[in-house]
């Protein structure tokens, strides 16, 4: 957390956790989809479901899905903006169990892509993304983050790490989960800088790789 996260974010009201954080959760899904969003189904858990409406949580989430930042003046009109952009969004109340009360589960579809993101808004506009594509992750958007889904194989993490090193980028944190041995695995790596287009293309080129996304830094600091 930097000084600019303590005096900030600059945001549209009313609640940093219900509005700014919700917008950033939408932004994560926006970047991970990687194409224009067409349809969203959003599950709101606990406090997000209970007091979300008056806090504009639904507007903030939709704004994020459209790629708007928490201080975008279009945020209060996100529903109309979505309509104009051809995005339909549907909200449901869900019980996700023992997770943070401000948690949303986002299913987002574009023309060809589909992404699922679950994350919590933990206060002051800070978020924690806990699941992507149904697999556990742990990143905050405070740093550029590369996500790779692949079929579990020996040496994948070493190959990924050496590609990042060859790109001259330092790894700040790494989480990796897999369904089963030899099954689908997802690695989320927080970085000190953005990766080059070439490094991403190189990841995509590997036969075990199923999906690669680079999420830019979403926080101010």
């Amino acid at each position, binding site marked *: 957390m930097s*000084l600019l996260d*303590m005096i900030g974010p600059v945001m549209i*009201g009313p609640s*940093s956790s219900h509005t700014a954080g919700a917008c950033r959760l939408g932004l994560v899904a926006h970047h991970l989809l990687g194409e224009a969003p067409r349809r969203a189904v959003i599950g709101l858990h606990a406090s997000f479901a209970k007091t979300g409406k008056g806090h504009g949580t639904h507007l903030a989430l939709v704004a994020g899905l459209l790629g708007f930042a928490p201080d975008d003046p279009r945020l209060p009109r996100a529903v109309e903006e979505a309509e104009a952009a051809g995005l339909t969004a549907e909200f449901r109340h869900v019980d996700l169990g023992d997770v943070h009360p401000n948690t949303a589960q986002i299913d987002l579809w574009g023309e060809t892509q589909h992404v699922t993101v679950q994350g919590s808004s933990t206060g002051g506009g800070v978020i924690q993304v806990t699941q992507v594509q149904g697999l556990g992750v742990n990143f905050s958007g405070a740093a550029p983050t590369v996500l790779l889904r692949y079929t579990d194989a020996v040496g994948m993490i070493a190959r990924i790490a050496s590609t990042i090193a060859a790109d001259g980028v330092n790894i700040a944190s790494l989480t990796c989960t897999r369904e089963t041995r030899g099954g689908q695995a997802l690695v989320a790596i927080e970085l000190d800088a953005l990766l080059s287009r070439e490094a991403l293309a190189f990841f995509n080129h590997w036969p075990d790789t199923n999906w690669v996304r680079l999420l830019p830094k979403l926080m101010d*600091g």
Partner: protein
Amino acid sequence: MTLEELMNAPAPASAWVLAQDCAQTGLDPQDVRHEMRRRIGEMRASIERGLASNAPSITGMVGWNAKGLWEAPDVLEAPLLKRVQAYAMAVNEENARMGRIVAAPTAGSAGTIPGALIGVADHLGLPDERLIDPMILAAGVGKAISRRMFISGAAGGCQAEIGSSAAMAAAAVTELLGGTPRAAVHAASLALMNTIGLVCDPVGGYVEVPCVSRNAFYAVHAVSAAQLALAGLESFIPPDEVLGAMASVGRMMPAALRETAEGGLAQTPTGLAVTARMEGREEGELPGGMVALPLA
């Protein structure tokens, strides 16, 4: 960064905070100062919009308080007091009506720092350039707090939210008025000591009642803490121990008293009526002649 380290930093404390933070994040100090300057401008813009508007908030519970106070006669002949309170409420009312504000550290406590810092600066006729370093110190105090304690009402009660913003504001005002790092941190500590145990009980779960008036009160609280510290008064309990006490009280607080609208003011008959209406369970007028708008 601890409050103890901050207290013993070379003056001005803000320069030390900026150097520490940039070493950690890799950001350029000039970029951070530039961005802080921009955020002070955003705070000022939200004050101006808030003082000029009497449009109701989303729920209809607030929206006219800042303008009303600003235009009311200064019966106490205490222009600083009125200015600080009106500025703080202007920001939070702007927030409650989906206006653009700077969370500091949260949106619910966004009025306290601009109320205290910009309010004092305007009262004394100081330019915004003078506010950049104090604002950096405020952020540094916030970082030190968030290391030990929580800064959200849901996690630690309102002591964590308005208490943190009041402590940050107290340190900033102290530096603005020429106080030492030691005085600034003691001002923060004095402000924190007087918020311990404060319940977060937003009516209906919305950042409106008591949040808007609470920002006005705690902006003044921050200025009081700065005044005491600048006069040489210190927090008898060491500042980091105060943080420890707050963290411990926050953990002891039942969930009903931490932003769930299940305790305190939110559970009064009026609070329950607002909650029922906001959840769409009941139609009709709110008690006490309260203004209420239909939800979009």
